[in-house]
Every structure is written in structure tokens, then in C-alpha cells.
């Protein structure tokens, strides 16, 4: 009975030599290809991906998945008796037309490939895109776009072309980072004493501030009301929150304890003599 059904299907021609049976076989090849691709991807994620860097694992996973799909597609076309050489010739012209029509899509695709090859940042890195005013954690470099999770929890999708041509500032590529603040002390205060007080307090109460290199103090300017000191401290790259936000608090506490004045803006007004 099955043979009869197959016989009937093979006799039902659609176009030229294309019959319902060959189309069915093609469909089975494609479906099988999709299933095999998904299983291969799943097995790769389960057994091999955990031992690889996250972005490398993602790229290899995509390669396996789409590689199997392309092979399946080639199997499908050959099962249908389609001559690809003819398509190649026509495809050249067609590609030019499509290329113009989908320029930005292709551009994003190629930029995505370049991003994967060049790796200006990897999955999980904290990055800043100054041109776009975006700072956050890189979640994914996809086929056409990349995703960055900003610190407010929202996710921004950036077309790969824009991402690739932007300035990318990596905040996690170095072992350590530097935090800095400016603080003003009164003109009556002893600068060396104030620096010593600030330095001791920082080193004693901020455990994430590096002892080597030591905190650095530069006189930034002799301001209208105060001597402004620029304070630089280094910290492990992942501990920004333990340095920058509490640096001013620590410095103010140190100056308060030592009675060193942080002056308000002042104006000295001279009035004419009577």
C-alpha cells in the first residue's frame, strides 16, 4: 500500500521533473537537517561549550547550526534536480540587485562577522560607546545587531554596522581601573597635611583601593575660593562601586576629623571709603 502511495506521488508532476515525491524527500532532508542541527547545537552546548569562553562557544554553536542547515539545503536542491550552476550565474546579477536593496542589512551582517573576528569586546565586558552615550554590559554580538544591557537594566540593540564603526571603550580589559575626584580645601589649610590626612584615611578605610600604585594627589588649580586637589586612586577593575562612589565621602570624613575646612564659594566685596 505504501509503495502504491509512493508510486502515485512520483507520478504527480508539479513542474518539469519536480514531482510531489521528490518534494517530499526534499522536505524530509530539510526537516532532518534542522533536527540534526538543533541536536548538534544542543549537544555542543551541553558537553563542550562550558569549557570554552562564552563568545567563542556562541560563535562555534552558530557555525555548527548554520553549517548543517547549508549542507541540508544543498542536499535538498540536489534531490530536486536543481542545477545550482544556472542559479550561480543568475545569482550574480540577482545579488547585485539584492545588494543595493538590502545594503544596510548586508552591511550589518558583514560588520557582525568583523566584530566576531576582531573581538573589540567580548560577551560580559563592560563597555562604553561614547558616540552613542551608551555604557553597559555587552550581552551578545548577533548576526545583524549587538545587545548592551545598560546599568538601569534596559537593553539597547545596536546595529552591528554602527557598533563596528563606533569608538568602543572597554572598562574591563585592564586589570585595574582608576577613580578620581576633585576636592577643595581652604587657603589657610596646610596642603601637605591635608594630603597626608586624606591619604591615610583612604588607605585605612577603603580596602579595595590599591596600595601600589599609591593614591595620587595633584593640585589642580588655585580656585576662587579653594585650593582644588585632584585625587586619583586605583582599584581592581570589578570593584568600581567600592571606590568611586565612596571616595568623596571618605575624603570629607578625613578632612572633617582633622578640622580642615572645605570652603564655600566666597566673594570679597570692597566698598568705597566714606
Amino acid at each position, binding site marked *: 500500500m505504501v509503495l502504491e502511495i509512493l508510486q502515485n506521488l512520483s507520478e504527480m508532476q508539479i513542474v518539469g521533473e519536480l514531482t510531489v515525491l521528490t518534494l517530499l524527500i526534499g522536505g524530509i532532508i530539510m526537516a532532518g537537517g534542522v533536527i540534526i542541527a538543533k541536536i548538534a547545537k544542543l549537544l555542543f552546548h551541553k558537553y563542550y561549550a562550558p569549557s570554552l569562553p562564552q563568545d567563542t562557544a556562541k560563535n562555534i554553536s552558530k557555525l555548527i547550526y548554520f553549517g548543517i542547515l547549508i549542507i541540508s539545503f544543498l542536499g535538498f536542491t540536489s534531490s530536486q534536480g536543481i542545477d545550482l550552476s544556472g542559479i550561480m550565474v543568475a545569482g550574480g546579477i540577482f545579488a547585485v540587485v539584492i545588494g543595493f536593496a538590502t545594503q544596510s542589512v548586508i552591511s550589518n551582517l558583514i560588520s557582525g562577522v568583523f566584530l566576531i573576528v576582531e573581538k573589540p569586546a567580548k560577551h560580559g565586558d563592560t563597555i562604553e560607546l561614547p558616540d552613542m552615550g551608551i555604557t553597559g554590559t555587552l550581552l551578545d554580538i548577533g548576526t545583524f545587531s549587538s545587545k548592551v544591557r545598560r546599568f538601569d537594566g534596559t537593553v539597547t540593540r545596536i546595529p552591528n554596522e554602527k557598533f563596528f564603526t563606533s569608538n568602543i571603550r572597554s572598562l574591563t*580589559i*585592564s*586589570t*585595574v*581601573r*582608576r577613580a578620581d575626584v576633585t576636592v577643595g580645601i581652604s587657603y589657610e589649610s596646610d596642603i601637605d597635611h591635608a594630603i597626608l590626612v586624606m591619604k591615610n584615611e583612604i*588607605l*585605612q578605610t577603603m*580596602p*579595595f*583601593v*590599591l*596600595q*601600589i*600604585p599609591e593614591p595620587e594627589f595633584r593640585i589642580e588649580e588655585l580656585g576662587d575660593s579653594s585650593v582644588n586637589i585632584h585625587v586619583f586612586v*586605583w*582599584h*581592581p577593575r*570589578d*570593584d568600581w562601586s*567600592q571606590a568611586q562612589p565612596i571616595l568623596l565621602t571618605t575624603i570629607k570624613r578625613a578632612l572633617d576629623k582633622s578640622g580642615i575646612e572645605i570652603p564655600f564659594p566666597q566673594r570679597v566685596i570692597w566698598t568705597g571709603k566714606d
Partner: protein
Amino acid sequence: MNTMSDDSKNIFSNYGIYDLGDDLELSLPNISIKFQRISDNAFSYFRENSEGKIVEKIIPVKSNDLKIELAPIRPLNHPARRTNHVFLKFDKEIYLSKNSAASIFIHCPIEIGIFLIHDSNYDSLDWITCNPLNSRFGLYGSPDTGTLCKYAQVSLATGYDDSNSYVEGVMQIVVENTLSSGQIISQVIFPITDNALYYQDSKTILDGIKITMKKRAAVNIADVKPTPLEIDWTMSPTWEDKVSSTPLEMNLE
């Protein structure tokens, strides 16, 4: 079972294995620890340091036979685990003349671990430092390619008996200068994850290191390698993830 140490006038708990029983109190410099049975199947753990920071945990247990071990651990966990390397800055520089060798002892900072022992398995319950001011970070090298280290200023020790209880252990450093000129040593940087710790009462000893100053191509370098100890003291369990680190080579200035 362990008792108290009368070290440095105060009465502090010795390192070692303690049977929990119903209640147990341990005392360390600036730190107090209490275990209390709160039901047949659970204990509470309470720890307070000198800054008033409190840690409390509930420990469910299967059997009545629960023990803990108080032991020194590597100084890598306070204030947070970020590196396997330590950067020890000597309070006095050491001069070594050409083609000579020397052996010195230094005080190396330690932390203290509290381990739960059940069915001969060790689980880390907590870790503490009795000297948080000597538990800081430092960078060896440049910000982009340097090595982040736990940093401490250390003094020379007279020998293995010169350990500062609960705060510093003693480590032997053998230095060999194979260069044709004298060298000054003021600091050493190495991955401490290869060094085991040993304890007796309240004292701690660490595996030593050997520093060989030699010439490679046109550059003078210091090659640092661990040297395991053979000693009858109790080896401390270590709970940090064992990560094999490449021995460090320091550039000589």
C-alpha cells in the same frame, strides 16, 4: 580536642578540630564566634568582629556528630577574592652579593578559615582576618598587563617559632643570586595557591619559596618557585578553588 592559647596575654582559641556538642564559643583577636544548638537538627553560627560587623548562619545537620576545624588559610579572601598572587614588600631591603645564596624567614599574612567536618568531608563555613588593615591589594606591572596581587608590608622573622599568632605565619625564602653583580631584594611576588599552610596551637608556617636571580637572554630575572615543607605540624585544609598558576618571573631593576 583543642583548648585555649595563652598567647600574648589574651586567651584565644587554638587552631584545630572542635566538637560542637551543644554550644561552642571561640575567641580570636578582635573576633568572637559562637555556635549554638537551636534544634536537634540545626546549629546557629554567629560571628562578630571589632568593627561590629555580624555574620549569622543556620547550619542544618544530619547527625549529632558535627565538628569544626579552625585553621589558617591563604591571605586571598579579604575583602574579596580577586587574585591568586601575593605581593610582599619587605620592611628592610636584602642585599645579596654575586654568586651567593641566602635563606631568610619572613612574616606572611594569613587569614583564618572555619570548616565544617561531616563524614570526613570539609566544607568552608566562613573565613576571617584578624588584621584587616594588612589585607589590601597592590599591582605588579602596568595597569593593562600587570598582575593584581594581595599586598602586604612584611618584616623579617627569626625562624619558624617567630609566627605572630592568628595574623602572620612564617615563610622561608631561599634566595640565590647567579648573576655577576650584587642584587637588592625589596619585594617578592608569587602565586600563593601553590603554598600549603601548617599549624600547631596558634602558630602557622607556610611552604617556602625559592628565588633564583638569573640572566635570560639580555634580561636579569628572578624566578620564583614554591618549595614544599616536610614538617609534623597539621596541614591546613584549603577551601579556595585550586587554580594552578604559572610561576612568576619578576624583572630585576
